[in-house]
């Protein structure tokens, strides 16, 4: 791809120039707008579960069918949410991060060589 690099980017020689460029700002914004809320979400969900397990014994020990308790469903729910967030993030990052990050990397490494 480096052969298609635009020749007009002579100013893009330092990391600081890249850092303030609109393309990079957009990549950083996109990354943070995904991972920060997602981190908040799973931490809230995890600590909600921890607090319920710790302080709401009556609620958690209710049976929902056979010997399956609410606590067990909540616990398995943590597994499901962890697997789901992993899949969602990997899919999202493969599609929305890699192409732009790669393009910028080639641009920078090309300039440096």
């Amino acid at each position, binding site marked *: 791809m480096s052969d298609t690099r635009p020749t007009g980017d002579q100013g893009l020689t*330092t*990391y*600081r120039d*890249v*850092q303030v460029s609109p393309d*990079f700002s957009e*990549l*950083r914004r996109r*990354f943070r707008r995904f*991972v920060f809320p*997602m*981190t908040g979400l*799973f*931490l809230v969900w*995890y*600590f909600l*579960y*921890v*607090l319920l*397990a*710790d*302080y709401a*014994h009556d609620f*958690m*020990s209710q049976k929902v*069918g*056979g*010997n*399956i*308790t*609410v*606590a*067990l469903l909540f*616990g398995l729910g*943590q*597994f499901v949410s*962890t*697997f789901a*967030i*992993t*899949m969602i*993030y*990997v899919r999202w*990052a*493969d599609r929305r991060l*890699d192409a732009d*990050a*790669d393009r*910028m*990397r080639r641009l*920078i*490494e090309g300039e*440096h060589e």
Partner: protein
Amino acid sequence: MSTPLLLPQATDIGNPTVNVAIFALFVVATLAIVFRASRNNRTAADFYAGGRNFTGPQNGIAIAGDYLSAASFLGIAGAIAINGYDGFLYSIGFLVAWLVALLLVAELLRNTGRFTMADVLSFRLKQRPVRMAAAISTLGVCFFYLLAQMAGAGGLVALLLGIDSRAGQSLVIAVVGIIMITYVLVGGMKGTTWVQIIKAVLLVIGAGIMTLWVLAKYTFNLSGLLGAAVDKSPAAGEKLLSPGLQYGLTGVTKLDFISLALALVLGTAGLPHVLMRFYTVPSSKEARRSVSWAIWIIGIFYLFTLVLGYGAAAIVGPDAIKAAPGKANSAAPLLAFELGGELLLGVISAVAFATILAVVAGLTITASTSFAHDIYGQVIKKGQVNADGEVRVARITALVIGAVAILGGIFANGQNIAFLVALAFAVAASANLPTILYSLFWRRFNTRGALWSIYGGLAATIILIAFSPVVSGKVDAKTGKSLSMITDTGIDFHWFPLDNPGIVSIPLAFLLGWLGTVTSKEPVDVDKFAEMEVRSLTGAGAEKAVHH
């Protein structure tokens, strides 16, 4: 809780010869692979990072191999068998923690560093002091984790080989240590990684077979299995199925549980031996795939341990487990014996041994890399050392660490494994994670902030542990026996009420990182910060794979 391994009774189940034979097979096979893998160990990147040539899936399996220690296999299965649901809470914390690594740490770290955690932390701050601090905390975490694994080896020996004399156990700990040193010296990161991969595959297959076997006994009816576990546990009864059996007793134990939950979820992404594994892949995309694979394998494995724990309660019964040498840790091996006799017990025992061996090897290479690359190469020699010299120091360090681990393991034989592991997680969450996050995401962060956070977090964790009931003054109300490290009930110097320090030390370390930063007049190194930020997100200038 503290000295179950000194019980003078030998195991009367299983056949030690079978156990030893299967284990010897594992050692011979892995050593052969390690020798093969070592042929291409030429550069520092080969020795420290396996040439960065592992694929995401390979590294993901190796991460699972590194992470699923004997404490999580034997420990969690045993905790579920005895304390029911409260044992399950551990595995949930250990698993959810991986999302921190996936979303915030793995890829950025891979793009920024070379070999160690300190590479990233010192990237844009004052090199020598920050590197030194990061290396000290790396060595601290590795030391506690190593001690836990070696102490576990002693307990396992008592149970599986029928060796109940202290001298015999010490000899086996020494043998484990020597095999592990061989892996690291000969194979470097490449050899160690292959040992992790083989071990992870064996562990998951072994646990998977046992899980299916247990479920088949109850016609794949989970509710039926839980009912049988309750029937076999008259003391706990229905409480086995909901939280509170272990942590629900008083307000203090409830708070202790929150503290533990915090340390578990924030500890993983600060464990240096886990972080170092991200350097063994060629790119951040592969680092992402590694974590994704690791999460699936670790998650599925913990689901297995849920079935195995309740299965052990239903089929073996808590009384038989508590009476066995090794107590709770013997739940999974006893279950294996009940299901598949001597042969399955032998296989599961060998897998448990392999687990200890592989985890110890991973910790040793992490600690020796950190010493050689950070302390020797960058702090003492100020970077004026060639890679060969550094790797030579790393090999010597591995020998020293191996010796320390053997001695420490012999000394710690009989200590509570779960406590030592929880301590390692608490140090990682307090001393490492705040600095990692600040340096990746907070522009203003500076050297004083890093030093205060690392040293403050490390000191707070160790001091609070030293003055906690874990070390002295915890007495079983029923039997009057000590539950602390110091078993003399007359000695009691604890003033911190909780077993786990996380709820105090983690917020404190974050606070110190902020406070140190805002009180320091050190200007932000804008060029280095720009380089770090651009590198971390785009991978520009990141270390490439080695091609032979």
